[in-house]
């Protein structure tokens, strides 16, 4: 008798805590339920619900189309809208994704952010070591499309294949608190207040991008901007606006025209 009860108690103690298990990959669905474990067959309904069930360094995938809501990220994670391009629709001063992940790495991919003309910013970077924003669409925010005020030193931010329209302050506001490098490639910024604002301590490498038809300045720099193979055109204010000690280095392959005025690069670089 005794040994059996001892065995039973050992078994009970060693059972995994199934309700608290975190998966390396979780799923959300337009017809999911946040009461679910966010698995492939029982998906969650929101990114905020799924992230609590996703292990550090894991992935939240989107199973089918839907609006998965705002989320605050405090760990390493990838959120991938996959083929359905998961939506985040916000309004009334709320931000889409707030990244406060310390020294972790965050990837946001295939997401579509809609601010309905009243939300604050689509992506706010408060802290992270590395942020990847890939193949995203951002539209209609009062603040920035991407607002970078990172407090983590030497941040690396990569923005690729992303379209930003109609953000009241700027398409990208890059003002990390200490050193930061932002690489911007194949990004399209239009109809914002300013196109891209680059703060002090900040290096922005802007390649194959378009900054056009914004209401005010195209690209402003208090830091260092390397500009290559891009178009800065038809902005309501100055096209290239560097304020000392800020610089804009052009690699002599950019179309800068139709601005008010065009402005010019601080210096010219040479391609290798």
């Amino acid at each position, binding site marked *: 008798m005794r040994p059996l009860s001892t065995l039973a108690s050992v078994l009970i103690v060693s059972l995994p805590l199934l309700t608290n298990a975190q998966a390396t990959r979780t799923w959300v669905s337009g017809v999911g339920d946040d009461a679910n474990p966010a698995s492939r067959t029982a998906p969650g309904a929101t990114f905020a619900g799924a992230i609590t069930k996703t292990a550090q360094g894991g992935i939240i995938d989107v*199973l089918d189309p839907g609006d998965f809501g705002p989320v605050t990220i405090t760990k390493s994670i990838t959120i991938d809208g996959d083929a359905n391009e998961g939506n985040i629709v916000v309004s009334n001063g709320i931000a889409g994704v707030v990244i406060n992940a310390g020294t972790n790495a965050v990837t946001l991919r295939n997401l579509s952010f809609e601010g309905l003309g009243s939300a604050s910013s689509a992506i706010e970077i408060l802290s992270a070591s590395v942020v990847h924003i890939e193949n995203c669409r951002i539209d209609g925010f009062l603040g920035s499309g991407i607002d970078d005020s990172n407090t983590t030193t030497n941040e690396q931010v990569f923005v690729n294949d992303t379209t930003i329209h109609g953000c009241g302050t700027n398409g990208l506001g890059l003002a990390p608190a200490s050193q930061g490098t932002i690489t911007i490639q194949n990004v399209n910024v239009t109809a914002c207040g300013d196109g891209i604002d680059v703060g002090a301590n900040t290096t922005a490498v802007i390649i194959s991008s378009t900054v056009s038809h914004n209401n005010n300045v195209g690209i402003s720099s208090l830091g260092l901007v390397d500009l290559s193979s891009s178009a800065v055109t038809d902005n309501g204010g100055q096209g290239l606006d560097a304020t000392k000690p800020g610089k804009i280095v052009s690699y002599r392959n950019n179309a800068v025209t139709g601005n008010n005025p065009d402005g010019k690069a601080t210096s010219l670089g040479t*391609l290798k």
Partner: protein
Amino acid sequence: MKSTATLASVLLVSLPLLSNAQITWVSGVGDDANPGTRTAPCKTFAGAITKTPAGGVINVLDPGGFGSVTVTKSITIDGDSAEGSILVSGTPGLTIAAGTTDVVTLRNLSFEGLGTGLTGIHILSAGTVHIENCEINGFTTSGIADGNSVSNAALFIKDVTIHGCTPSGISLAPSALGVVTTIQNANITGCADGIDVGTNATAVITKSTVSGNGSNGIQSFGLVELSGSTVTGNGGEGLKFAKPGQILSYRNNLVVGNTPDGKTSIAKPK
């Protein structure tokens, strides 16, 4: 009678082998006990590949994780619009050990190594490999490692994003001679080295970005032809080569913010 029986046997012989379809399917809610058809899909790439003849195609029906797989024949694995995923921990994502004339195409796939996976895509042998529209993240013996033993083999890498792999995003170290790798629109960040090109290897790199890697951007002990690309913000040398290695540039690359940038030999664009 006899002629009818003969006709019947001729007809039977010429019927297509319907159970051995050229195209198989996997689904996030599939079952590897299934034949891998559109209506009865498999659950994993490893399960489907046994039901796919050489030269066939494994398609992804809907989103899911389809597991690691070893490829030993000509095949296409296509994530289609669902972007099929391979997530591993401590093991390789996909290994290619195919024949000298085999053609392997990997398309629309997402590889996640969680920081413990070995190699994202490991090429041991194949005649031709195509890697298109793939993402590779978090592997510890390189994102793509080419150790091809087949002479004059070809590797094509197009529209591929590689983050957070060590020691290299792409490591080209074929054991055979004459292997040429053509890289177009690759984006490699957060690795130790971005692209390592070994002694026997030739790499033609166009419209690619190698940025924010902890060590060197592009390191060449072989031959690199570089055009229309960006190598910036790497913690080591942007462009590094040591004889007999070369990096030939077509004078249209943005190389800035590396430690140091390094330099190239100049090629003449035509």
